[in-house]
């Protein structure tokens, strides 16, 4: 065993010396390789963690949302619809949800206004998310001015700033009492934005949804499962931005592998020829090339993965932020919880290290089986 280890170390010594002879080229190769792994690993870590977090958080979403559609658009729903839905067997509760958007011309951003259940806020009081507080420099005890649908100005007092820990769900929220909501938008008490349902048995969801569409044909039903799948779809590998980044990474890899598999440089062929001439076996040459592939790919893989972890979980994916932010003014500042596991790492390993190592060995094996004399010429 000791002899075997010593042999491997000798080969690694030789491989490293050989790599050092072409310092510039190999350093550039390792740098680019590390960047490719870094990018792929960042995407995998980020998407997996946000998907996982979304699936946990949105478990609290309503079982079903019923919205009224008029000419293909979402409209306010009459509260009489709630009474008709309540009669359906299996429905244990219906609540009229009041929510909407308020465009604030001062900062040019949309707030999401939500009326919480009764008793949480009095008339004239609001609670705001951290994003609003940060952008408007508005804090507890202060007031914010709003323009009602009639053009009148009203001041609402900030009773609370929602904790920064929940920014991922609350950054742009503005909680307001029902009275103030109706005062702002002029909506009648007989209408709500949409209805949320509580269902006794989740297995009856689809049956209840089809019953609702039968008795209220101008409504659409959004099930919790669809909400969860929505987030699963955007951060899955086929999602918009992910596929673009992963395609770039894949193309970079194809160029790598093609460069390696298309053959060795004249210098490398000569080196193999000399090694064979001085008594190296074909298996020794392949072993050397295997270690060469491992030195490059393993160090790039490990460094790239560690850097990606730091990027996603310590800098809050600073490189992805501009893409996610778009033109948003109220962008949440959140730190993702690292939902990572060995399966993501092994997928990355098999996608990056294995193809590269194989692509290094094959042309070397071809060169090593040729007569040394012809290789050196």
């Amino acid at each position, binding site marked *: 065993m000791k002899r075997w280890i010593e042999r491997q*170390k000798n080969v*690694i*010594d030789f491989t*490293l*010396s050989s790599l050092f002879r072409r310092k510039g080229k190999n350093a550039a190769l390792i740098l680019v390789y590390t960047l490719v792994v870094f990018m792929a690993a960042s995407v995998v870590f980020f998407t997996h963690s946000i998907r996982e*977090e*979304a699936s*946990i*958080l*949105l478990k*609290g*979403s309503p079982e079903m*949302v019923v919205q009224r*559609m008029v000419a*293909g658009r*979402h409209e306010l729903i009459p509260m009489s619809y709630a009474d008709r839905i309540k009669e359906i067997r299996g429905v244990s509760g219906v609540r009229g949800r009041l929510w909407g*958007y308020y465009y604030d011309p001062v900062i040019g951003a*949309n707030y999401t206004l*939500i009326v*919480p259940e009764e008793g949480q806020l009095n008339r004239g009081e609001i609670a705001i998310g951290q994003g609003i507080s940060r952008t408007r420099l508005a804090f507890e005890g202060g007031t914010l001015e709003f323009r009602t649908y009639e053009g009148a100005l009203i001041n609402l007092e900030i009773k609370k700033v929602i904790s920064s*820990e*929940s920014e*991922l*769900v*609350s*950054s*742009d*929220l503005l*909680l307001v009492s029902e009275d103030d909501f109706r005062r702002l938008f002029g909506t009648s008490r007989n209408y709500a934005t949409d209805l*949320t349902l509580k269902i006794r048995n989740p297995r009856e969801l689809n049956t209840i949804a089809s019953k609702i*569409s039968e008795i209220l044909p101008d409504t659409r039903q*959004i099930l919790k499962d*669809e*909400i969860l799948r*929505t987030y699963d*779809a*955007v951060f899955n590998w086929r*999602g*918009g*931005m992910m596929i673009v980044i992963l395609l770039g990474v894949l193309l970079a890899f194809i160029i790598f592998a093609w460069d390696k598999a298309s053959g060795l440089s004249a210098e490398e062929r000569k080196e193999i020829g000399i090694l064979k001439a001085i008594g190296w076996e074909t298996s020794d040459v392949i072993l050397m090339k295997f270690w060469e592939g491992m*030195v490059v790919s*393993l*160090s790039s893989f*490990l*460094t790239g993965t*560690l850097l990606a972890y730091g990027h996603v*979980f310590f800098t809050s994916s600073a490189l992805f932020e501009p*893409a*996610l*932010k*778009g033109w*948003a*003014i109220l962008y*949440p500042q959140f730190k993702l*919880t*690292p*939902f*990572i596991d*060995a399966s993501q*790492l092994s997928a990355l390993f098999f996608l990056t290290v294995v193809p590269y190592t194989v692509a290094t060995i094959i042309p070397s094996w071809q060169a090593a089986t040729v007569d040394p004399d012809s290789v050196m010429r």
Partner: protein
Amino acid sequence: MRKSNVFLFYLALNIILLLVMFTHASIRRQTDRESIAEKERMVRRLELTDLCLFTEASYTRHWSQADLHTPFQDSPMSLEHFPSGSILPPPPTLRKMNETVD
């Protein structure tokens, strides 16, 4: 020091860091458990349906509630022009078929 030893040391160091990474992730999951539960309670209490990720347009903010008019939100001829529109595929609600049509 032999070059092979330097390389093996570097490899070992990286593997240790990788293990530290997993340990850190596991500790963070434990410590974040309460804050995730708190966020989940907030979602339940306020009956939220979406994450606050894309706030640039009202319809990308509540994307699971988007309707078929979303791409033409601002005018009938206006195609989607917000950057997050290129990231977001249509939600499953808009793609589902309630009944077979043939």
